């Protein structure tokens, strides 16, 4: 098993520590805490997409599965009156179950055709939300998805409070990244990466490639289903547009800008690009243009992504000190 070496462990703990004190650092500024919550969603989305990437493919249906989790949890509340504490698990379960069913045919396709087939799956999911108006609310979406209240008897936490929700979302993203890290740094990760590296050889060493692909896809979609449920109860409003192809594409962009070889990549990419996107908000129309420029520049000028920055800095430092 490859455990984290010390510098990495310190870096992760530092990141978590900063995330924990951020609300105090920003003096409980509601807008900045909102940005923090959005970051946690984007990190979960990108990190779970990265888990699929360890197989060597990217799913453009990923935001769609986030949508399944979100809609399931929202409808459980609006139709059955069950709070998010139930919706979360129901959403995760339904998202995982649909992922399992879809991935059985989907995993027959390979390489570039997988991108495209998953893209079709994502579109079908979105269009179904839009088409079945009576059930899913059509393009208007679902409103009034209340955040939950945690009643511990002696203490009541109302997650309508943004700071409370921030910590809930932070807990969820930490758990998600932890699960993905554990899966990846174990024998399971070795199996996924061996499929990624050489599927033919993996098969001939006795690995049931198809089975592991299906399980990996299901795990990733279950995780993103939870993210979707948390998203729905935070925004209190969801529509098919929230979960369209662009959301998957932005998650892919987070991956590429962050780096593809470790789970640190998507985390770094999602955090930095969400911040960049928020900084560009003031520029109005130029926002998307600038975002496009940042994207192209980072692909061309920083191959390997943000995760290669520490290594580059170390090299630079060694060169200058050696002189």
């Amino acid at each position, binding site marked *: 098993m490859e455990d984290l070496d010390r510098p990495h462990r310190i870096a992760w703990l530092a990141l978590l520590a900063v995330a924990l004190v951020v609300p105090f650092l920003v003096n409980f500024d509601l807008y900045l805490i909102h940005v923090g919550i959005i970051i946690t969603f984007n990190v979960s989305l990108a990190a779970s997409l990265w888990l699929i990437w360890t197989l060597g493919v990217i799913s453009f249906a990923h935001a769609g599965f986030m949508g399944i989790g979100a809609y399931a949890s929202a409808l459980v509340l609006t139709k059955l009156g069950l709070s998010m504490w139930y919706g979360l698990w129901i959403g995760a379960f339904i998202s995982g179950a649909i992922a399992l069913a879809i991935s059985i045919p989907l995993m*027959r396709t*390979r390489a570039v*055709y997988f991108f*495209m087939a998953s893209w*079709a799956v994502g579109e079908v999911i979105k*269009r179904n939300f839009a088409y079945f108006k009576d059930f899913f609310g059509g393009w208007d979406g679902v409103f009034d998805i209340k955040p939950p209240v945690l009643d511990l008897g002696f203490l009541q936490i109302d997650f309508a409070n943004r700071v409370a929700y921030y910590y809930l979302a932070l807990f969820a993203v930490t758990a998600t990244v932890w699960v993905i890290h554990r899966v990846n740094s174990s024998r399971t990760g070795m199996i996924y990466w061996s499929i990624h590296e050489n599927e033919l050889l993996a098969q001939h060493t006795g690995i049931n490639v198809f089975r592991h692909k299906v399980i990996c896809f299901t795990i990733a979609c279950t995780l993103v289903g939870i993210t979707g449920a948390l998203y729905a109860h935070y925004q209190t409003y969801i529509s098919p547009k929230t979960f369209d192809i662009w959301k998957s594409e932005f998650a892919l962009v987070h991956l590429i800008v962050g780096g*593809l070889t470790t789970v640190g990549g998507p985390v770094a990419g999602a955090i930095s690009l969400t911040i960049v996107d928020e900084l560009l908000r003031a520029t109005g129309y130029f926002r998307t243009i600038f975002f*496009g420029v940042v994207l192209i520049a980072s692909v*061309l000028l920083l191959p390997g992504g943000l995760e290669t920055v520490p290594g580059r800095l170390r090299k630079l430092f060694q060169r200058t000190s050696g002189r």
Partner: protein
Amino acid sequence: MSDFLQMGLTGVSLGLMYALIAIGLTLIFGVMRIIQYAHGEMFMLGAFVLYYWHAEMGLPYWAGVAVSAVVIFGLGAVLQMVLFKPLHGKNILYSLAVSLGLVLIISGSGQLIFGTTTKGIPSAVSGGVLLGGAYLSYERMVISAVSIALIVALWLFLRRSVTGLAIRAVAEDPDTAALQGIRTGRIHWIAFGLGSAMAAIAGCMMGTLLSIVPTMGFLATIKAFMIVIMGGLGSVVGALVGGMILGMIDSVVTTTISGDIALILSFVVIFLILVFRPSGLFGQNWD
């Protein structure tokens, strides 16, 4: 009966136009193994070049189509040389990300420069003919004829001309082609330019038939992708067949049920095709 004829005729003309967009995309993929997500943006820009030439400046229509094709050919070639060339041989995700960035930049700038209001291009011909109870406008006929002519021309170009044969050789096996002295770098920008120009001409046609907005590229990209997946990446015949399937679904299902169902159904068809033929109808197994 005449309803069916009407639907069939509309389906064919739609299908031909879709095929025109998709062939450009499949050509680019076949030669360079990149997914050009900004293909629809070339389609959109092509339509706007014609709009400014013909509707704003009042210059002749067909010359405008040619100008549009040449301008977008140049743009495509430049984009290939500046942005995609450095990524050659790397994972397909990188070029995909760059083309995504291009979509954001081009459609964003398009909204700034062209404005967000819907515009129309006056058509070159008017009138129509009744055919067994189905109405067929001359405009649609001309557009279909142009589409067919272009597809045939491209097909001949790829099979007869030296450059065309070189393009096919590179698509088939880049290493061997390079060994035989084909300058693959040159082939890359030519193919990228040609593919983009095809999209631009399709944009001119579609823009004349319907209307134009800077955000129209996205839908074109979706259609082109759907077709290319159905037909198989890198296959010109596949793009033609895929275009026809999609055109028919669009025409028949939209008329008889609804546009939403037409779209869902097309995606389901694509999904099924991929499940049973994992490389599309006429595709190869690209790894």
